[in-house]
């Protein structure tokens, strides 16, 4: 089993990311990502043969399941599934695997703020671990604005609860916006400010993914 642990700290103030690949032995790719006390595990299965009802002739079908730490899945989980599956569809080169299905399960193990960020990183790492052909890798960052107008990056749950707005950006390697989940009350300037911060971190995250995979590869060589 290839377990890789390492910590990358950002220039933008955020908690370090800790990643462990291959944590689920029976999945084709898996990863556990920790950011502070937020822990998310993700497993990728496939491409496998799709059920005839769901099958698409020109591309692979991606199914995403999100489970939170407690309780039955509800609207909250369904919305996260929608966000994650839209990321998967954009990231994976689905047309290379027609008639198949790729299923992704994401388990939130503990949520101490910025859970979407952690989910995106876990998703990317496990897709890389599964060796699926990807267009690009994504990274995410969450900003929260407080009532006095100051900005926090990578907020914890307590910080989220006092914030007036919570903006999560999912960006590609070039720092452009791929997906966004922003709630609360905010104005255009705040949103754009958060986006520019997110763009500036993109390159660091790419290094993080590269290092994660290169460590995995060096393990295999040995």
């Amino acid at each position, binding site marked *: 089993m290839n377990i890789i642990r390492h910590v990358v700290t950002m220039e933008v103030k955020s908690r370090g990311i800790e990643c462990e690949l291959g944590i689920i032995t029976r999945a084709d790719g898996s990863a556990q990502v920790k950011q502070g006390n937020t822990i998310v595990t993700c497993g990728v299965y496939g491409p496998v043969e799709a059920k005839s009802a769901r099958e698409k002739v020109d591309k692979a079908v991606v199914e995403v399941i999100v489970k939170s730490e407690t309780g039955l899945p509800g609207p909250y989980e369904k919305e996260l599934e*929608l966000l994650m599956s839209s990321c998967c569809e*954009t990231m994976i080169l689905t047309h290379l695997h027609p008639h198949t299905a790729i299923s992704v399960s994401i388990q939130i193990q503990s949520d101490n703020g910025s859970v979407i960020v952690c989910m995106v990183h876990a998703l990317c790492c496990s897709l890389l671990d599964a060796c699926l052909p990807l267009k690009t890798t994504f990274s995410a960052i969450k900003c929260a604005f407080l009532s006095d107008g100051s900005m926090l990056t990578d907020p914890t749950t307590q910080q989220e609860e006092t914030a007036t707005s919570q903006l999560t950006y999912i960006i*590609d390697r070039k720092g*452009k916006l791929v997906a966004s989940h*922003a709630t609360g*009350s*905010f104005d255009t300037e705040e*949103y754009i400010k958060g*986006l520019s911060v997110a763009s500036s971190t993109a390159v660091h995250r790419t290094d993080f993914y590269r290092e994660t995979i290169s460590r995995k590869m060096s393990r295999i060589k040995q």
Partner: protein
Amino acid sequence: MVLSQTKMDLDFRLLFPEEFIKQILDEGYREDGRSHNQTRSTTLTVGSFKSADGSAVVRIGGTCVACGVKGELANPRAISPKDGFIVLNVEYSLVTGSEKLGAIGGGEKFFSSQSLTQIIQDIIHSSKFINLEHLCIEEGKICWSLNVDVVVLSCDGPVIDACVLAAVSALKNATLPSVEIESEKPLVSMATRNHLKTGQYPLMTSFAIHKKEVSDTNIGVLVDPTDDEAQYCTGIVCIAVTNDQKLTGLYKYGGPAMTSDDIQKCIRKAKKQATILVKLIDNTMK
């Protein structure tokens, strides 16, 4: 201008719907003759369902959504004894064809009813539209619970925009009977009914994002996409703006990556669209 459709066009449309829409969009037109940032006509009717305490029907092009608000008496939760409840639920009605049936019944729906429920509940709460404390009748004892049921009757385009508009208008239209407490028991008198106290309300505008073939960096943005257009365009952006022009939700789901200029263009358009919808609501509620 409306494109004249010959027999050959129609055959081409039938056989290669994606290619057809792609070619039209690349040339800068849309199938129904609109320009890229033109919306379809929106109609709003309020108070048409007498069985509900407040109701609204919204039609945006071929999309039709009905919403009814019914008030019920409930006991407040111990953690928030001053607050009432707003229980919002969105469902695709039977007549649109089942959610699972895919292409046969109204195309595959991008938003599941549950994710619509979550998003709309998020933006209604975060825009501070209704202060839950106003729904309190007696602290810790009794309060109103508003069941806001949004039913999608026909889908052809931005269902989420129509749902938000319907939910907001129905809540603004809603009246609740007055309640007195007599020896711990609530007594409802239907004769005197009062409107809810409402604050800033959210309005949603959706965009579809597609990549133009000509150059890699160029993306096209369609406002108020129809179902067929949304299926070809991989990205969806939904922007919620309150009536005082503050943003209260910005959702983007996949598709081509956007720069901050692209996003700002969308926000400007969403704000402009919000002022139009505010006028529509004001005129209807008069």
